[in-house]
């Protein structure tokens, strides 16, 4: 991409209709000599590369030049690259954006299919590929510094929260008055409550600050729990309802086993005493052996509103 970077530093040729989309432009044109003098090295290298480059540019120049000419585009923006896109009219920019986003969408689907083939081939050849992390996405916690939540994690979260609350209540209700903890100043209305409940008066000896602390902690923890549950519900809402976020549906042809049993009629007249051989199985053509087929609603993204940025889930995980 170095050479293309250098080509891009050449000043852009003033407006030519078919040149709009190509940042590099037609290098074969007559350049103002002053510019060439400033960058002699770049120009020479550029020219060498340009001849091979411009041919590719020329072939792609008509109409869809931008789409068929990825080597002309460098992801590192220089000052002139921004200028090139700035030369487009508003409608052109919109059209370009739309066509590119469409392409991304289609390419992601191709990548998914290619990956399936890759998995099949590597499995056949016994090549061990690296494990890809593709289970259900974690829900990032709303509370900073806490690990992300998953639906399985949620049970432990409930248990932790409830035990914390229970512990604080026990602490404030039993431990503190028993130990006669005095953490500060407070009133005595709790004593009346204790007296009215006909419980041992010892329990009323809880220090109000202790009481307010435990009450506050319970409140905060339950509030945070509610926040997290809302978060989980919200993330669930973003899930595709048909595949429940997995991106795939069970293949009906092979009943999600991945294999089709080939039935062959066996003659029992001659050699009828021979035991039946186990039936041969073949990989299911529907799902390519994964037992799952694409969910057509979310297109393997698992999201209710799939966008072209959503990664497509692999079926083998």
């Amino acid at each position, binding site marked *: 991409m170095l050479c293309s970077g250098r080509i891009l530093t050449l000043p852009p040729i003033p407006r030519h209709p078919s040149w709009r989309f190509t940042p590099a432009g037609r290098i074969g044109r007559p350049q103002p000599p002053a510019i060439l003098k400033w960058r002699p090295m770049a120009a020479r290298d550029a020219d060498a590369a340009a001849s091979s480059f411009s041919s590719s540019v020329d072939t792609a120049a008509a109409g869809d030049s931008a789409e068929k000419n990825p080597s002309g585009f460098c992801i590192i923006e220089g000052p002139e690259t921004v200028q090139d896109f700035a030369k487009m009219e508003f409608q052109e920019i919109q059209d370009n954006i739309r066509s590119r986003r*469409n392409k991304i*969408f289609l390419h992601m689907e191709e990548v998914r299919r290619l990956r399936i083939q890759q998995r099949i081939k590597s499995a056949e050849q016994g090549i061990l590929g690296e494990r890809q992390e593709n289970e259900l996405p974690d829900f990032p916690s709303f509370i900073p510094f806490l690990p992300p939540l998953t639906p399985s994690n949620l049970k432990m979260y409930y248990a932790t929260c409830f035990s914390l609350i229970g512990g604080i209540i026990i602490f404030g209700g039993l431990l503190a008055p028993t130990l006669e903890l005095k953490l500060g100043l407070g009133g005595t209305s709790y004593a009346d409550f204790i007296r009215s409940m006909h419980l041992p008066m010892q329990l009323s000896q809880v220090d109000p600050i202790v009481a307010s602390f435990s009450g506050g902690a319970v409140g905060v923890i339950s509030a945070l729990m509610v926040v997290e549950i809302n978060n989980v519900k919200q993330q669930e809402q973003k899930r595709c*309802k*048909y595949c429940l976020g997995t991106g795939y*549906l*069970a*293949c*009906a*042809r092979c*009943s*999600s086993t991945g294999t089709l049993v080939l039935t062959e009629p066996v003659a029992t007249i001659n050699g009828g005493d021979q035991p039946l051989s186990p039936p041969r199985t073949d990989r299911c053509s*529907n799902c390519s052996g994964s037992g799952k*087929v694409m*969910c*057509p*609603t*979310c*297109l393997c993204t698992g999201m*209710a*509103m*799939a966008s072209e940025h959503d990664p497509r889930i692999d079926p083998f995980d």
Partner: protein
Amino acid sequence: MSGSIVWVATPKEASRSSGFNQFVGVTRRWWRSSSAGWSCARSASTARRSVSASLVVTPPRSSEELVYDVVLRQAALVGDARRKRAVEAPPAPLRGDLLDAAYERCGEVCAEYAKTFYLGTMLMTPERRRAIWAIYVWCRRTDELVDGPNASHITPTALDRWSNRLEDLFAGRPYDMYDAALSDTVSKFPVDMQPFKDMVEGMRMDLRKSRYKNFDELYLYCYYVAGTVGLMSVPVMGIAPDSKASAESVYGAALALGIANQLTNILRDVGEDSRRGRVYLPQDELAQAGLSDDDVFEGRVTDKWRTFMKGQITRARMFFDEAEKGIYELNSASRWPVLASLLLYRQILDAIEANDYNNFTKRAYVGKAKKLASLPIAYAKAVIVGPSKFAGTL
């Protein structure tokens, strides 16, 4: 079909013939895929010639008539289906528990997207409930292909592929678990494929059309997206064995219920649709009332709008009345849920009136209390009124 259409003055010949070309395409497909039950025994090649001949000789047929042909075909197939079932090979079995899981998922999807409808299915027998869920999920998935989050990427090829999947599942080779549930349903109930294909055609239509010149075009659209559902569900609901009414009339009533539902949807969602740039009201009727698309987009309730809406609501109510007659011919167990859904949906029209015909900004909503009150009323009607004792009373 007694007086069910309020015919506005016939529109220009040009628009009629353009609509007619569409219908020709539709009918041509029917003739090609016709089975023994089709009364009009013409082959495909002669059909084309006779169609071109009829272009010269006979006036173009309205969509109402062409849709009624589908109804006739469905009714004719009712007798054939029983005979055919014995001959066909059984579909490839899906592992038992997987099928139950598939049906359960269908129920979950139904509960998620159509809560009132789901509650209505609870009034049915368990077998019918599962069948209706499977049909609902297929219709919903088809609708989401053109109306869902990924609709911008849908191509005609995708719809063709979807059609092929439909044919496969009817042949006992479902693709995924939801298809498997529908495949099981069509093997247990005598459901025909034609309404499903017509629904896919309706989706194709929706991709390119956002305006409807006259009620004829709108009627065809309503048939494609909602009338077909009525035709799909009659075999599941079942016709009462002691009913003297013809199968055609029952199917015709089911069609009317679908049309009525769709018209109600349209009248309720005028504002929402206009914000997406779509107007599902007949252009010529709007013009007759002195209104235009701009008035719809503007969203102001004027006296002209009120008059116009009154007429539209009256027409929708006529469809409901026609549909109700047919419900009493259904199997006794199915009358209650279908009647309940009719009453509930008809109340939406009342809600639009109560909103002073403001369907631009106000949502016509039927309160829970009113919904619950409809259930015993529907039950009473279902039990008291039985199937017609005399043929031809529909």
